[in-house]
């Protein structure tokens, strides 16, 4: 058991606001994945705290079709799915401040509430090019959840935006590939990036630069 009684009751309290059903689609692997088993157990514990949240588990190696459908390329992975698939993924078991990202992800997918302004929403409604946000975080980074919710909210609102949240300590090679030397660090469409917990308008400006 990962979550103690008190944490559970606090999560339950929050989950009271949930509206749409949420499915946490977990991808796991039998061997050579240190945290896959714990990740699955943790997600199952979370799902028990609301009847609006359920879990589906797939194997990264054998369930090829599902891997393709959800666009998963590494494990452990959690796809947070609501009425539709908004493109929100978590890579790495969330064990610290990234746990906030899981809870917020569930809330954002389930409710329509975002903190986006009407201007942000207008921009996102008109966005017509695929935008892939990869937010690198670490479990001990208290500044990271702010960057994560920015990406998750944008993905929730626009079908063009996909948001991958990646624990840089569990995927060091990927962090290296993108030259991450501080978190949060948001990679936009592989080519550009924004450092730090930047507000939505900053990310939008960066996306514009990248898509141009």
């Amino acid at each position, binding site marked *: 058991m990962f979550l103690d009684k008190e944490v559970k009751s606090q999560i339950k309290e929050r989950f009271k606001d949930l509206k749409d059903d949420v499915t946490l689609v977990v991808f796991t692997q039998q061997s050579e994945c240190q945290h896959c088993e714990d990740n699955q157990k943790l997600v199952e514990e979370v799902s028990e705290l609301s009847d609006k949240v359920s879990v589906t588990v797939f194997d990264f190696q054998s369930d090829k079709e599902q891997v393709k459908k959800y666009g998963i390329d590494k494990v452990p992975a959690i796809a947070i799915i609501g009425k539709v698939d908004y493109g929100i993924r978590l890579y790495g078991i969330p064990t610290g401040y990234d746990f906030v990202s899981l809870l917020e992800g569930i809330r954002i997918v389930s409710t329509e509430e975002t903190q986006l302004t009407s201007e942000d929403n207008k921009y996102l409604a008109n966005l017509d090019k695929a935008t892939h946000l990869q937010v690198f975080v670490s479990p*001990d980074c*208290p500044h990271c*959840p702010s960057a994560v919710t920015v990406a998750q909210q944008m993905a929730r609102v626009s079908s063009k935006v996909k948001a991958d949240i990646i624990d840089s300590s569990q995927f060091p090679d990927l962090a290296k590939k993108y030259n991450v030397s*501080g978190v949060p660090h948001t990679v936009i469409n592989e080519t550009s990036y924004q450092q730090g917990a930047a507000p939505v308008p900053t990310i939008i400006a960066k996306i514009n630069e990248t898509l141009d």
Partner: protein
Amino acid sequence: MFNFSLGSNRSDVDISQIFDVVIMGAGPSGLTAAIYAGRYRLKTLLIEKKLVCGGQLATIAHVENYPGFDTTVSGSHLAQEMEKQAIKNGAWILQGHIESVNFTGQIKELNTPKGVIKTRAVIISTGAQPRMLNIPGEQQHIGKGVSYCATCDGHLFIDKTIAVIGGGNTALEETITLTKYAKKIFLIHRRNEFRADKIIQEKIRMIPEIEFMLNTTVKEIDFGKDNERKILVHTKGQDKTIHLDGVFIFVGIIPNSKPFLDALNLKEGFITSDEDMKTCIEGVFVSGDVRYKSLRQITTAVGEGATAAFSANKYLTEKR
């Protein structure tokens, strides 16, 4: 191993009501004030601008001087325990940024993006944030090799060479944290002696991976061309270039007092108060790192948080 944080984002608070006390900032000081205010059964709201509680405390890897925790405890763990305790004692926590305040009336008004929040008393515990060195190359490389948080970014420097700049407790403690990752650390300080507590100095001198550079100032951070990262330092009367992978800066703090500049008395940017945490305005109290004082630590932050809540309760009782 696990240290789950739940974050400060609650939507179950009705912010149209008038609160007894609103506490701004959920660092150790604000969290303690919330625990006490909740126990006095005051209608208590704690507002935190970040998605998680803890403030600077949340960024400390190992706390060694908080009484009761003889073996080291992580700052995030302490913060999460304080957060749970505040909620348990009846305080609401809301995510929101205090942008400006109006302290002129009996009912104080706080402006946030979520709307105006009204309260009979306020406690300001907005703390502080890391001070920048303000040298060329620093600003544009924040997060690209320049960091102010060892717990956040340390793991990105495994087997790398880094520099830590600073000479106080925080700089030396964070250097020790970083030895877990880096293979070599230049500890750079502009004076000929560290300010840190003697016990930390004794500890750090035992670590072979650390090279001490006293009487040394950093003039420029140059992470520009060819992926080559270097800094320019001035040491022993000479300029010198050091090649490395990252720089961690711990050279003090600046207070988060901007929303209160016009409303309260400040000294060097910090809010002044008496020993009961009363500011120059009735019903407005201050505690923690944002307060003008000499020792800024978790212990003093929590002590003042308790005193501020006590004073707020007394003020509210007398008003009734």
